[in-house]
């Protein structure tokens, strides 16, 4: 399968991807990983709130809300 890298913020609601890596300091990476957002996990975008609002994703059957500034630093592999 051909994949391409996108940031989580570029994914439209309903789209899926595999978490590739994070762009950020170790504290940020740890914060994401310890809540369950880890490299290699399958991720689905549940919704993206308008007006700069947060993104809601689902990983391992759990939903997590995160701000756009964080979402843009999550790099995801999606089917091209």
């Amino acid at each position, binding site marked *: 399968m051909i994949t391409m890298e996108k940031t989580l913020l570029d994914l439209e*609601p309903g789209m899926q991807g595999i978490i590739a890596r994070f762009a950020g300091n*170790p*504290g940020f990476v*740890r*914060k994401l*990983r*310890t*809540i*369950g957002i*880890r490299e290699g996990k399958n991720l689905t975008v*549940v*919704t993206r*709130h*308008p*007006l*700069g*609002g*947060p993104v*809601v994703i689902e990983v*391992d*059957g*759990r*939903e*997590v*809300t*995160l*701000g*756009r*500034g*964080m979402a843009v630093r999550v790099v995801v592999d999606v089917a091209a």
Partner: protein
Amino acid sequence: MKTVVLMGNPNVGKSGIFSRLTGTRVITSNYAGTTVDVSRGKTRLADGPAAVIDAPGTYSLAPTNPAEEVAAEILGEADVVVNVVDSTNLERNLYLTLETLERGVPAAVALNLWDEAGHQGITIDVDRLEELLGVPVVPTVGLSGQGIRELVERLGEARPSATIQPMSEEERWVAVGQITGEVQKIAHRHHTLADRLAEASIRPTSGIFIALAVIAAAFLAVRWIGEGLISFVFEPLFDLYTPIVMRASELLGPGILHDILIGRLIGGEIDYVESMGLLTTGLFVPFAMILPYIVAFYLILSILEDTGYLPRLATLADTFFHRLGMHGYGIIPVFLGFGCNVPGALATRVLETKKQRFIAATLMSLAIPCMAQIAMVFGVLGPFGLQYVVMVFVSLAVVYVAAGLILNRVVPGECPEIFLEIPPYRAPDLRATATKTWMRVRGFVGEAIPYLFLGILVVNLLYSVGFLDLLAAAFAPVMETWLGLPAGAAVALLVGFLRKDLAVGMLVPLGMSPEQLVIAVTMLTIYFPCVATFVVLLRELGARGMLAAAGVMVTTALLVGGALRVILIGF
């Protein structure tokens, strides 16, 4: 005596297990960040009594907010750790488990929410997990108490893990993956209709409609239950009580004792709001005017908390709260604050930075009246027409938003974005809801009523020595010229520091117009928190933070009071 510390990720059921172990009830709710401070209790282990500590939840031992700091610190006090783990989410929870075991403390693992794991088709090989971790592992259901006895028995075997050695962060993640892969099996699960409905409540458009409906329903339910309790329970009780106090009043005859116990008769009758006696107003205000709404509010709040709806509301509200210098979780202090500002102030600990906590705490003190005060506002202003009550709440809402917009600009510091786990929806457990409501109502009765009595006593004494008239005279210029209120309202405002509900009641005998009442009641909310909240805020914000907050409060109160006067009364 040994100290057992309960550690675990947020919302995994630590507080539920704590209640089971100690018999001491603590608040549990279906969202991360319910417990923000330690609770202590006692239990009996096989080798004697032990102290038990319930810590706030944390994802790792590297804290990101004050609640998590508390958790990381308290680990130092532990002789034994009970690591409570969410069985439906083993992989994520194991990171903290490994971090804890690496510290070399004797530990046991409680695989909590075992019932839900079963429902979701998740199986965990408990024996194998025990081998890998090198400490006892016991499946538990905190809600029903299943497995708690075995947990207590096996705490005797708790010792430092022989299999888990200190490792680097990357190694730890590898270990987490390996262990999970070896012990856990998940039956594949498809999206159900229920999942789709649940998602509707977190999507922008459908979510807003659902939120409005939920909030309207909650508001109506509180009013309806509160009014029902008043007209079918408390008023009939006081009808039976009136002849008894009247008789007592005759027996006592006029004098200071009569003034203190019964208060002033109004037209030869007892007026439960205005008489200001301990046995009249002192009982009627808390029991017949406030308590019914407290019961109603906490019942509805418990249901909202236990379903898991609040984090979804926080997500929907995030965009808005972000403009005010917080993020969506700032809605938790607001909800708790409507019950009582004290837990509301404590709940600001779920916010990450000082700036966010300062704004959340200041805005709550400014513009979120507690239920006791709200009940009195409805009781006092309601008879003039609901539009006056609406004026108060609209003014407060404007203050909340305007002050938030300004504080966000002028307060230095960071505003990190929302980062929040959404818990699964759960049907509230009837017993758990009832117990929680009861705990909070009992808290109100135990704390509010002594203060109310004290307040009434102090007011009576100060009146009789003429101090309050002096005070009123001193504040007359501000009150009369700036706010358009009678000088006596100053006394009520000052009593508001003791109890705001009582202060609202004290406005009644002043014979003000409803417009004046609106101004006075709004001022009363904004100008300063009550003493109980003040003490907590002082601790949470520090002396400097509190001073700054107080400055904001007094300034806002004077500005808003003056503006309302111009709008409602004219010059």
